[in-house]
């Protein structure tokens, strides 16, 4: 398992075999000496958040409380929580590590991660909030036949959650091994158990607060690091860049685009997956139902975009700061004190080493604890969205339509337990695998299944159940199959000879997303059944609710 790849999930995946992979191959992450400062900081974080969970548990009585925290979270809080969901350890350590290794190329990824947000704001946020209740399937199935749409939505959501979760769990295990000196197995079980405590007892309220606290810690830590770096250069970015160019082995090349994106089709395809995939991630979509109305939903994406964008600018400065501080001090930060042997713990540790350089052991403990907390919070959000797909979309809307809120809540807790156990098992099973492609796969599937179905169901009046479900499954399957054929999986994971991958691009999105939209369109216009006519006739009522918010489920309804 190459820790570097896991953490730079996005990066390594997109470029598989590109610039990052060209860096030092560090092999299995080495277990480091037990870091007591980091463990103490982390224990404080876990203790504090479990206390919040206890408080949240007293407020989590109905299914609505469990799924959406009762819908009473403000736009600003929700914005921070969304940012918390999105600023994963992969983006913090991975992007700063990428900037450390390649300079400018890291910025290209940051931008890709950010640009999905305006699309969600301009086209989806308000309509999602007005039509939905607990899950995005509520939105997609508003005028459609419930069973097929819910089954599709739950399948797609669970697949996306599973891939995203594997990447997080394996990343967590490796990271903790390095940061805390804990065994991989204990690390994975620890993440699973703490996460279960949050979700099981505190539901959405606890998960949201964990995200908010973690987002604040991460933003504060990153801000401090960036300021400390700029302070060294009298707050002159030019001086920082000049010094970095002077000491970096690639010299001037770090200030311009490198080998990261090769062919234009890959560039566009990766861009599509990043831009539209965000609007199809179930744990992100779910956050829109935690606010009381469309106004707060819009505010929450605006805040989320602001924090995420700010954070990515910080990671760029941190990456350059790491170049200046670490390269000049190889004895402290490089294996055997030699730059050629790579950073201690791998290239993704650049930010962690920098934290030690600018803030000493105590600050490094803080940053390590934040990185761990980050994974914990993201896994909690994923589990919650997976559990609601099972209990709300499958159980309460398909198998037992007359169930009570208590029954639904019980099923969601059982589903949470199962998903938690599954996360631990998958984390252990994939320990030695290269899982870097999985985050990209989750984004590719999201932009090829959930996003087209949601988009067409809400905005196109002629869309029918048959079109949505067939098109959604076409996108889902095509995205998965083409990804298997790409070099990252076909060669790196399945062990086929180099050059034998039959899908030449970094992301399948351009093909699978287009195929999904085309199929939805084609099957819908060919669908002349009675059911299709009924569904089209319901469009004006759906539009009225999605545009005005009249009849939208509100916080006070439960």
């Amino acid at each position, binding site marked *: 398992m190459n820790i570097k790849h896991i953490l730079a999930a996005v990066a390594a995946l997109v470029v598989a075999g590109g610039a990052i992979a060209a860096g030092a191959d560090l092999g299995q992450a080495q277990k480091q000496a037990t870091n007591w400062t980091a463990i103490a900081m982390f224990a404080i974080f876990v203790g504090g958040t479990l206390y919040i969970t206890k408080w949240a548990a007293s407020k989590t009585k109905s299914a609505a409380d469990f799924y959406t925290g009762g819908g009473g979270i403000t736009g600003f809080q929700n914005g921070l929580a969304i940012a918390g969901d999105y600023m994963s350890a992969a983006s913090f350590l991975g992007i700063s590590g990428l900037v450390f290794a390649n300079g*400018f190329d890291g910025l290209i990824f940051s931008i890709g991660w950010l640009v999905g947000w305006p699309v969600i704001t301009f086209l989806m946020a308000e309509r999602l909030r007005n039509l939905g209740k607990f899950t995005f399937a509520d939105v997609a199935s508003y005028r459609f036949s419930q069973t097929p749409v819910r089954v599709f939505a739950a399948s797609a959501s669970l697949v996306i959650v599973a891939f995203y979760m594997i990447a997080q769990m394996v990343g967590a295990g490796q990271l903790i091994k390095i940061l805390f000196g804990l065994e991989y197995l204990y690390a994975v079980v620890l993440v699973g158990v703490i996460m279960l405590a949050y979700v099981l007892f505190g539901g959405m309220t606890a998960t949201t607060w964990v995200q908010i606290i973690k987002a604040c810690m991460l933003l504060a830590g990153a801000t401090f690091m960036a300021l400390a770096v700029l302070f060294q250069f009298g707050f002159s970015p030019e001086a920082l860049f000049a010094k970095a160019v002077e000491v970096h082995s690639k010299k001037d090349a770090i200030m*311009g685009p490198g080998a*990261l994106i090769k062919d234009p089709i890959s560039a*566009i395809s990766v861009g599509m997956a990043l831009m539209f995939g965000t609007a199809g991630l179930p744990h992100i979509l779910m956050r829109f139902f935690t606010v009381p109305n469309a106004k707060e939903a819009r505010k929450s994406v605006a805040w989320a975009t*602001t924090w995420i964008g700010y954070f990515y*600018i910080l990671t760029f400065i941190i990456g350059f700061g790491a170049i200046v501080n670490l390269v000049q001090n190889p004895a402290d930060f490089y294996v055997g004190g030699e730059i050629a042997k790579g950073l201690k713990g791998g290239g993704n540790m650049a930010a962690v080493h920098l934290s030690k350089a600018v803030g000493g052991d105590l600050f490094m403990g803080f940053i390590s604890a934040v990185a761990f907390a980050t994974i914990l919070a993201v896994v909690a959000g994923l589990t919650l969205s997976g559990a609601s797909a099972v209990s709300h979309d499958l159980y309460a809307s398909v198998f037992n339509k007359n169930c009570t809120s208590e029954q639904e809540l019980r099923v969601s807790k059982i589903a949470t337990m199962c998903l938690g156990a599954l996360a631990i098992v998958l984390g252990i099973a994939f320990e030695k695998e290269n899982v870097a492609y999985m985050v990209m796969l989750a984004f590719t599937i999201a932009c090829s299944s959930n996003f087209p179905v949601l988009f067409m169901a809400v905005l196109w009046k002629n869309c029918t159940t048959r079109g949505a479900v067939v098109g959604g499954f076409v996108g889902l399957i095509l995205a998965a199959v083409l990804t298997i054929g790409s070099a990252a999986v076909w060669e790196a994971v399945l062990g086929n000879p180099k050059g034998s991958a039959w899908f030449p691009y970094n992301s399948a999105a351009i093909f699978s997303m287009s195929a999904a939209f085309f199929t939805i369109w084609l099957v819908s216009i060919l669908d002349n059944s009675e059911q299709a006519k009924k569904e089209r006739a319901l469009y004006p009522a759906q539009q009225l609710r999605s*545009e*005005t918010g009249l009849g939208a489920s509100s916080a006070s309804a439960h």
Partner: protein
Amino acid sequence: MQDVLDRISKNPKFLEFVAMRSRYGIIMSIISAAAYYGFILLVAFDKPLLATKIGAGVMTLGVPLGVGVIVFTIILTWIYVRRANTEFDATNEAIIKEAQK
């Protein structure tokens, strides 16, 4: 409640409002996508341009352009949200009130 909904859906102001707001959302999406893809296409097709030095130091055109795309994205989002949360919501409210009379 049903009469209110019927009256709203027959109100030409409502249809006009929805069409205007959707158009605005789509235009804003296109602007943000254009900014992003403009940058990505430069990365794909004209790397030397982004690596061009500006000024006397090491600063290249790519850095302010890249950071600019991030800042532009944030600003664009706030412009939309500000207008939607004031002007659009007020119009929406007025249309609903009118139908409830």
